[in-house]
């Protein structure tokens, strides 16, 4: 069974007179439980592809199926529900809610999913400890470094055990030691819970952890490497 499936996926941005083909005829199947890394030069369409899969942006044409549901025609509210139930998102910029502490940021998603107060507090603290933020739980984003904020964002994405985690350059702001901790955590989740991971990166270290590497250039898949 596929976790993600794209058919003839196109996304064209109109920039004045100019049409930018951010994705051009992408066909892609990702197995459930897969660990996939997207790479390629800047502007090659990594973020665009992740946004399409996450239902944040709608394709110009083509089909996308995520968690067994066609999402390319879905309504805004349905997409939000899908993200909440099945997806964890780590954005290229951390995007935390500034008025909430690290723990509250993590708990927020769990609460929307209906997790009880005790359980979500416990989970949030555990996960924050796992990403190395013990003792910083009650700080607001503004009181955390870029790397620390990124780790909070990762904790938020995985707290409720989603089926699919989409992470856009999750280690861009981390030192290599922390990056490694994070990747090990991802691998662990992937192995224990069959969580599917789709990451994008410029970092070779991360690519080493992936079982499948997909190279994009000018909105097309130019290489698809099996690393198992």
């Amino acid at each position: 069974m596929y976790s993600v499936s794209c058919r003839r996926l196109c996304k064209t941005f109109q920039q004045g007179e100019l049409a930018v083909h951010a994705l051009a005829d992408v066909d892609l199947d990702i197995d459930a439980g897969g660990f996939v890394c997207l790479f390629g030069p800047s502007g090659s369409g990594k973020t665009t592809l992740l946004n399409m899969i996450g239902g944040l942006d709608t394709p110009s044409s083509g089909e996308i199926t995520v968690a067994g549901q066609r999402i390319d025609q879905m309504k805004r509210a349905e997409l939000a529900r899908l993200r909440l139930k099945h997806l964890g998102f780590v954005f290229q910029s951390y995007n935390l809610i500034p008025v909430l502490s690290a723990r509250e940021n993590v708990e927020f998603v769990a609460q929307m999913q209906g997790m009880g107060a005790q359980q979500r507090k416990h989970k949030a603290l555990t996960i924050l400890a796992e990403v190395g933020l013990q003792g910083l739980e009650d700080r607001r984003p503004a009181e955390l470094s870029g790397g620390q904020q990124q780790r909070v964002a990762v904790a938020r994405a995985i707290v409720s055990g989603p089926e699919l985690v989409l992470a856009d350059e999750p280690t861009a702001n981390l030192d290599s030691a922390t990056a490694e901790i994070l990747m090990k955590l991802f691998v662990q989740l992937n192995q224990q819970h069959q969580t599917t991971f789709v990451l994008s990166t410029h970092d070779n270290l991360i690519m080493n952890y992936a079982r499948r590497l997909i190279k994009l250039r000018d909105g097309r898949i130019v290489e698809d490497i099996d690393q198992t």
Partner: protein
Amino acid sequence: MQTPFLMLSTIAWRNLWRNYRRTLIMLLAISVGVWAMIWMTALMRGMVDQMIKGSINNLLGHIQIHAPAYRDDPSIVNSIEPPGPELTDSLNRPLIKAWTSRIRVPAVISSERESRGVTLVGIDPAAEAALSFLSESITQGSNLASADAPGVVIGRKLAERLETRLGKRIVLVSQDSDNTVVDRGFRITGIFEAELQTTELAYAFVGRDRAQEFLNMADQVSEISLISDDYRNLTHLLENIQATAPDLEVISWDQVDPYTGSMLAVMDGFILVWIIVVFLALSFGLVNTLAMAVFERKRELGLLQALGMQPGYILLQVLIESVILLLLGLLAGNLLAWLSIVPIQDGIDLSAIGEGLELAGMSSILYPVVEFSDIARANLVVIVLGILASLLPALRAARHVPVDAITRP
């Protein structure tokens, strides 16, 4: 999905204090707006209420009953019989606080030096006390003791004009029921002072029985006047009385005195204009800032949706924030209104500018009148305006997730 109401409220509350200066300015705008609406309305209502009560006190009453032709020709030929048993029953109902019958005819009053036209009013002083100003306004001598007391009571200004004083005699000249000119001398037994000079010049009060005898009108009277508990709400009472006196004209104070009656409508107009003025001032301040506050956070609101929050909850989030702000502002505004009205509850003395006010028919002490509907309206205007102002940009925010801002730094 569970409504994360508490979380939304927490975010809303903290958001408010994130830009505390703007929040304080908005609170100030809201509270001053509400205060201004309530306070000014209370003063305007007080002013008009004062004017109307003054007129009612000035022999107007709430309802008058007379012969159908009396208002066109208020002379003795248009007198009526004293109330029969059915009308008396009707007048003695509990809703009517007091009633009396009067003689009221044009007359000329003369001292040995001067003459003036006045209205000769024949009263029953005991019944009259509950209806009009006279019993409380005697400053020299005394009020008429009964309906057949022998003297006359006139205003201080009239005495001055006639160059006469307490204890002196004057002569009243009028027409009797046969259109014969009659005259009779009366001793001045009381002098009254009124808020308005025109009142002091207008009347000569004598006992009702004496007037009837003087004018040869047996026990006939010119009018019956009554007051109920509320001058604004007379329709029902008018109908009931009219039913028991089908041949007489039964009319309310605002028909007798359309000028004063129109004050109510004029005031409602003023209040409306005032509310519109405050509303516009608020619109510029509040609407812009609320809209800005939402607009600035488009990206954050989009993020909530990207994290899986339903678009409807984005609206709820904004709504909670505005409602907290509005309620705080309203609380402060109402408190401010209360604080500024309580100390002047017993009236503020405007005698410094009193001369001008007297000309407008008002007394120089102003009592604010607070009506629940005015408070409700002021609060409603602000709540509705505030919610609309923040909901419209929030709707836009909920409909559009700024994907670029969130995912491409």
